[in-house]
């Protein structure tokens, strides 16, 4: 039964040489296709990082379906409830009462009250002018032992103002309250996946005797609340900037952005800044640089001039990674991304100058649905979307940076690349698992 009825070869508009591409948006924004690569986390996965918290989504049934099944697939249905908006609610304008009564009903039927409740309102509330402050005020009065926070499933805002992803990461830490600081403690915030324990920054923090807290490691709500004690926050994901800014303003926790970059000098600069914040001398990273070079050389000896495709779900800095690999002799031929963050500009311009033939490929463009996904030669993909669009079983299955950072991250990545090149994977099965690294996902 299954077949492709299309035979489309013209990729104009859906792919462009980097020399001819515009920064930061190389493609026209039109109808959008959704590739079946689902490893990135969504707002349900991220919200579940607050231990013991309960989520209540308030929206139309069509919008509820995706999130309720996300929770079910990750084995967290017991921490998830819904309040369904129907046509009569839109017509009657009783949105506030629906949320108050609905959330109250949900909480009254849970076996015990959770310490925190994340209420996700939707696009409809935004357009109907729902009085959310009143809603939360009443709920806090009704349930004084519960900490409520406002979360948002309003994808209509993804092109204006703070995106739903940024808002989610901001609200994830909104329940932290002012407390006595532990001056020698630091948080890592905003990341969905735990960092590898030998990541450069984790190693430095631990070796310097500081306490490190990370929501991905919290086992209880109390442990999560301990994050208020940190003197500063580190974030690695651009979408966590809003969160870091808010914590600085609210709790006086300063912040340090350590971008998910791959350029050696940029990593060194970030590590120097971290050392300064920790009050220690910067480490000499010459040995680490050499080790990273050796690992990449070793991977290159395995992979050779096999074409490599990279996508934006693999890292928030796909162009930084592309540049590193090209500088080290790998043959990166295409990058799958619909746009780039501002800090990628320097790498973009370097690639334009030095590798003008590099192909930038859209992932959302409608043509992407019908363009061939088969290649005649073997290709190594870094990322699920790159694997899908190039039809390869040879890929590195990571999302959102995969918890790798720094020179040690590059060393691990080089190993994963060699392994990905040598050992085929079940791409179809692996990339369809939602929220890679969230617990209990099944397919």
């Amino acid at each position: 039964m299954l077949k492709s009825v299309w035979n489309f070869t013209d990729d104009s508009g859906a792919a462009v040489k980097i020399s001819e591409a515009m920064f930061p948006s190389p493609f026209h924004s039109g109808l959008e296709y959704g590739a079946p690569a689902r490893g990135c986390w969504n707002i349900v996965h991220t919200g579940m990082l607050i231990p013991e918290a309960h989520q209540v989504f308030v929206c139309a049934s069509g919008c509820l379906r995706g999130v309720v099944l996300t929770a079910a697939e990750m084995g967290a249905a017991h921490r998830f409830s819904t309040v369904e908006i129907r046509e009569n609610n839109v017509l009657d304008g009783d949105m506030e009462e629906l949320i108050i009564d609905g959330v109250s009903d949900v909480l009254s039927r849970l076996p015990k009250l959770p310490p925190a409740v994340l209420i996700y309102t939707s696009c409809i509330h935004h357009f109907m002018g729902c009085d959310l402050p009143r809603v939360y005020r009443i709920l806090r009065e009704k349930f004084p032992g519960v900490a409520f926070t406002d979360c948002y499933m309003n994808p209509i805002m993804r092109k204006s103002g703070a995106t739903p992803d940024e808002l989610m990461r901001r609200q994830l830490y909104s329940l932290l309250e002012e407390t006595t600081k532990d001056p020698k403690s630091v948080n890592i915030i905003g990341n969905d996946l735990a960092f590898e324990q030998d990541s450069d920054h984790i190693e430095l923090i631990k070796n310097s005797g500081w306490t490190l807290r990370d929501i991905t490691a919290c086992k209880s709500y109390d442990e999560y609340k301990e994050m208020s004690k940190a003197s500063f926050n580190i974030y690695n994901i651009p979408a966590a900037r809003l969160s870091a800014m808010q914590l600085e303003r609210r709790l006086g926790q300063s912040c340090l952005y350590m971008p998910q970059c791959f350029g050696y000098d940029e990593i060194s600069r970030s590590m120097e800044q971290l050392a300064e914040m920790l009050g220690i001398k910067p480490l000499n990273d010459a040995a680490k640089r050499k080790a990273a070079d050796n690992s990449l050389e070793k991977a290159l000896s395995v992979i050779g001039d096999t074409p490599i495709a990279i996508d934006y779900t693999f890292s928030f800095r796909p162009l930084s990674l592309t540049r590193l690999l090209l500088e080290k002799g790998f043959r990166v031929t295409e990058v799958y991304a619909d746009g780039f963050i501002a800090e990628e500009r320097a790498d973009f311009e370097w690639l334009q100058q030095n590798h003008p033939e590099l192909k930038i490929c859209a992932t959302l463009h409608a043509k992407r649905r019908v363009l061939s996904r088969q290649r005649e030669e073997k290709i190594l993909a870094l990322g699920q979307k790159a694997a899908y669009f190039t039809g390869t079983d040879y890929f590195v299955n990571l999302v959102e940076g995969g918890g790798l950072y720094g020179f040690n991250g590059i060393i691990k990545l080089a190993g994963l690349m060699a392994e990905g090149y040598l050992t085929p994977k079940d791409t179809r099965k692996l990339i369809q698992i939602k929220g890679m690294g969230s617990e209990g996902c099944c397919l």
Partner: protein
Amino acid sequence: MKQTASIISTYASDVSGVCSALYELGGMTVMHDPSGCNSTYNTHDEPRWYDFDSLIFISALSEMEAIMGDDDRLIEEVVETALQLKPKFIAIAGSPVPMVIGTDFKAIARVIEKKSGIPCFGFTTNGMHSYLSGAGMAFEAFAQRMVDPADKAEGKHRVNILGATPLDFSVNGSVDSIKIWLEQNGFEVNSCWAMGSELEDLVHSGRADVNLVVSQSGLKAAKVLNKQFGTPFVMGVPVGLDCSKLLAERLIQAEQSGQCSTSFTRNVVNGEEDIVLIAESIYGCSLASAIEQKTGKNVRVICPLEGEKDILMPHDVFATDEVELMPVLEKAKIIIADPLYQPICPKDAKFIPLAHEAFSGRIYRSEIPNMIGEGFNHWFAEHIGG
């Protein structure tokens, strides 16, 4: 209160129903939505997404377009994409925000059709009704617009299967089994709305002698075809050997008499029922009928979706909300339902899982049984037995 679900899932929505119904027909369906409908549909509601390229997109509606009531971008993008990809038809389906701002989908469809020269449908879905509503309106519109009125039945025992989508029948071979069963009973499958048939097969649906409606989503189209061609229809799914035999007889009777009917012979229950079954109405009644015939026990069907009241027995109920369902389930001894209903079922009741793609999506897909004909007997022996 109603409208809350502290535990259970929710059914696929009308937007997904439209996409699912039209998926294999070579058209282009656009969900007028900012983002969420796309991933929900292609992750949880569409098992064909990975292997079968169908032109299903979202419009990526933005806040400013919604505030300004800017339909022009939608029209331009749809026309431009359609002219590049050349679909056989276009369908536009709405989501909650377009409903709030009063988007006129019929008018937009007319403009797109005029500009592109490609037939275009506008569906006023809003994500607040079930997939049966959406698939039903898609099939109905297709029947009204695309079926060749010049065709007529030729008395060759041709059958259209109406209302087959993976949301009700998954991709486990059930629909193929229905086709095989029809052929084994002397019928010729004229078309299947809409799994495994080409658009051209559906266009010539007027050649059929009788229509087999296998889910609620096929009923509106059946009524259109009945009005247009006089084709009678029979509602039912060939579940189990005995019930299948009855269904085949009813199809022949309908073909001969021109009268529409169902294929269910259910028990009339005055006291308590032995078994409670949660399912889509036509599938549920077919399965209940098969179980009752095999066991002599009484089955109560709970229909959590839109359905025809007429095909349910007096003791069957429509119940959509958790608070409506729980009292009905309270006294049940045996409950047959999707596994995601289990948390609201009494612990002392025997729970028999029967996954439904439209409810639990892909989670239990590999466990969805093919109940057609003999398949029911295997399932019965495993789960209910004597």
